[in-house]
C-alpha cells in the first residue's frame, strides 16, 4: 500500500473525506452513549441543547470559545512555521500572571490606559516563554517539543507557589487564589446584562489580524515559507532564525492573551484551575481549522460547543463528561487523516 498524490482533486474529493471524518465523530458519540447505557439520539440532542439551546447556553459557548480562539491562533501560527509549540498552556498562565500583577493595584491608571498596558505585559510574558525554547532550538538544536511541554509543568508549579505565597489573597479564606482585579482592570461586557465580555471581541480581532498578516504581508509569507521548507526559504534570502523568533513572539503572545482575557474578562482573579487545558485543546482547534486563522474561530466555537454541551448533557444523562475530550481527540486524528485524503489516494504498491 502506498499513497499517491492526486494531481487535480475533484470538488467531491476535496469535501467527502472531511464529511466522513465529522460523521464518524458523531457515530462515535452515539456509540459511547450506547456503551454508557443511554439512548444515543437523546444524548446527542442533549449535547446540542446544552451548547446552543438557550441564550444562556449560547453565551456560555461563546465565553468558552474565547480562550480557545487565542490558543488555537497561537498554535496555528506556530505550526505553520513548523515551530512545534506545545507550551501554550504555560504561555497562557504567564499572561494571566502578568495580568494579575498589573491589575491588582500596582499601576494607578484609568481603565482605558490600564487595560492595554496589562494586555501588552501579558503578551511580553507569553512571548518570552516561547522565545526561550525557540532560541534553544536555533542555537543548540534542542527540540522545542520537549522543552515547551516540560515548561507547562514548571509554570503550573510556579503559579501554585505564588498563589500559596506572595500572591495569595489575604481575604481568600485560605484558598490558593490571587486578590481580585481592580474594577478599572476588568474588561467590560459587550452588551450590559449579558455574560459576554470584550475578550471575545478581542479574540475575533486577533483572528482577523493574524489572517491579514498571513495573507497580505511579507512577514506572513516568510513564516509560511519557513514552514514549507527551511532550505528553500534560506535560498530565497529569508533569514530563518529571525522568522522563527518572530513566530515565537506572535504565538506566545497570542496564547498569553487567552490568559489575559480569562482573568480580566471572565474570572477576575488567578487560580490554578484557570485553564482546563486550553493550551492543549488549542492544538485540536488549530488542526480542525487546517491551521487557517479564520477557520480557528469556527473550530473554536465548535470545540467550545462540544465541551459546554457535554458538560450539560453529563449532568442530565449518565454519560461521563470525558466524552468531550474523547470526541475531540478522535475528531483531531480523523480530520488530519481526512485532509491528507483530499490530496492523496491509497494504491496497492
Amino acid at each position, binding site marked *: *500500500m*502506498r*499513497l499517491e498524490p492526486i494531481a487535480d482533486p475533484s470538488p467531491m474529493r476535496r469535501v467527502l473525506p472531511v464529511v466522513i471524518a465529522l460523521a464518524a465523530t458523531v457515530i462515535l458519540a452515539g456509540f*459511547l452513549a450506547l*456503551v*454508557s447505557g443511554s439512548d444515543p439520539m437523546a444524548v446527542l440532542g442533549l449535547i446540542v441543547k446544552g451548547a446552543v439551546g438557550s441564550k444562556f447556553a449560547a453565551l456560555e459557548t461563546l465565553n468558552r470559545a474565547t480562550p480557545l480562539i487565542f490558543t488555537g491562533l497561537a498554535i496555528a501560527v506556530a*505550526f505553520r512555521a513548523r515551530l*512545534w509549540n*506545545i507550551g501554550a498552556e504555560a504561555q497562557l498562565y504567564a499572561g494571566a500572571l502578568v495580568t494579575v500583577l498589573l491589575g491588582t493595584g500596582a499601576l494607578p491608571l484609568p481603565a482605558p490606559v490600564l487595560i492595554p498596558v496589562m494586555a501588552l505585559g501579558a503578551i511580553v510574558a507569553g512571548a518570552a516563554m516561547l522565545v526561550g525554547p525557540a532560541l*534553544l532550538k536555533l542555537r*543548540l*538544536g*534542542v*527540540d522545542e*517539543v*520537549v*522543552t515547551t*511541554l*516540560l*515548561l507547562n*509543568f*514548571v509554570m503550573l*508549579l*510556579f503559579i*501554585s*507557589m505564588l498563589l*500559596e*505565597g506572595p500572591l495569595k489573597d489575604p481575604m481568600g479564606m485560605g484558598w490558593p487564589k490571587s486578590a481580585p482585579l481592580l474594577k478599572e482592570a476588568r474588561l467590560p461586557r459587550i452588551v450590559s446584562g449579558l455574560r459576554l465580555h470584550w475578550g471575545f471581541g478581542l479574540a475575533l480581532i486577533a483572528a482577523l489580524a493574524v489572517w491579514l498578516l498571513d495573507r497580505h504581508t511579507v512577514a506572513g509569507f516568510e513564516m509560511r515559507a519557513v514552514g514549507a521548507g527551511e532550505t528553500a526559504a534560506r535560498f530565497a534570502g529569508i533569514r530563518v532564525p529571525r522568522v522563527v523568533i518572530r513566530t515565537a513572539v506572535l504565538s506566545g503572545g497570542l496564547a498569553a492573551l487567552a490568559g489575559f482575557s480569562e482573568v480580566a474578562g471572565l474570572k477576575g482573579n488567578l487560580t490554578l484551575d484557570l485553564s482546563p487545558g486550553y493550551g*492543549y485543546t488549542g*492544538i*485540536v482547534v488549530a*488542526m480542525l481549522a487546517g491551521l487557517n486563522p479564520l477557520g480557528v474561530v469556527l473550530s473554536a466555537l465548535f470545540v467550545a460547543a462540544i465541551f459546554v454541551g457535554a458538560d450539560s448533557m453529563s449532568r442530565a444523562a*449518565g454519560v*461521563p*463528561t*470525558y*466524552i468531550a*475530550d*474523547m470526541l*475531540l*481527540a*478522535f475528531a*483531531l*486524528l480523523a480530520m*488530519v*487523516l481526512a485532509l*491528507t485524503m483530499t490530496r*492523496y489516494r491509497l494504491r496497492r*504498491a
Partner: protein
Amino acid sequence: MSEIFTIIASVSLWVAMVRIASPLIFATLGELLCERAGVLNLGIEGIMVAGAFAGWFAAYSGMGLWPAVGVAFLTGMGFGALHALLTVLFGLSQHVVGIGITLLASSSSYFAYRLALPEVTSPPKIEAFATWPVPVLSQIPLIGPVLFSQTPLTYLAYGLAIALALVLARTPLGLAIRAVGENPTSVEAQGLSVAGLRSGAVIAGSGLMAVGGSFLTLSAFNSFFFEMVNGRGWICIALVVFGAWKPGKAVAGAFLFAAFDALQIRLQQTPLGAHLPYQIFLMLPYLLSILALIVTSRRASVPAALMQPFRKGER
C-alpha cells in the same frame, strides 16, 4: 548539610531510586525503539495513562497480576497500531498524531474509569506486586538490597533493557530497525519492508510504554487515580535524547533522574525543605530534564530519518 549526607547514605534512598526508575525504563526503552526506527511517538504520555488504567482495571476485575501486565501491553500495542497506521502508512505529522493519541488514550481511560466506577470517590485498591528479593543476589551487600529486593516488574525492566540493547546492537533485526531510522531508502533497496519495520517498532514500543504505565498501578501504587502519570511520558522523551538513543545510556539517565527525584522528596522533609516552598522541589525534575537536553544537545546522534515519513518512490 549533614542531613543531606544522612539521606545519601541511607539505603532507602537508593531503593526508592530503583523503584522510581522502573516505569521510566520501560517507557524510555519503548520510545527509544520507536525513535530508532524513525518515528517520534508523542503518544507516550497518554499510552502510559492507558497502560496504568488497563493494568489496574484488569487486576481489579479479578485477573492475576501478570495477565494484567499483559492486558496493559496489549492496550499499548493497540494505540501503537493506530499511531503506526496514521504516521507510517499515511505519513501524517508525527507531532500532531502523537498529541492526538495522547489525548485519545488518556481521555478514553478516564471515560472508561468513570463508566466502570461512577460513584466512587476514593479509588479502589488492588493487591499489587509485593517485593520479591532475588535469592542469593539480594544477599550481596549494598547492591543486593537496592537492585535485587524489588518487585518482579523491576527485574523485568532490567531484562528488557539488556534484551533491547542486544537486539539493537547484535542482531539482523536490530540492524534493520536502526537502518530504517537512518536511511529507509537503503532498507527498501535490500528488499525489506520499511512500513513493516517501522510499524512493528512503534507497536512494540507503545506496548512497553503501557507496561511502564502499569508499573504505577500494579507495583508502585495499588490504585488508579487521575493525573498519576503527570508528565512522566514527556520526561522519558527527554531521557531518550539524554541517552543519545542508546539503551544503556538511556537506562543510566533514568536512574540518574530517579535518584534526583528520590532525593528531592526526602529533602522536602529536612529543615532546608521547610524553608523553601515544596513546589521548588517538584519543579526540579522538569528543570533537570530541560537542562539535560541543553547539555547533551551538541551530540549529533539523532537518527537521521527521525520524523521523516517514508513514501515509496518519493524522494
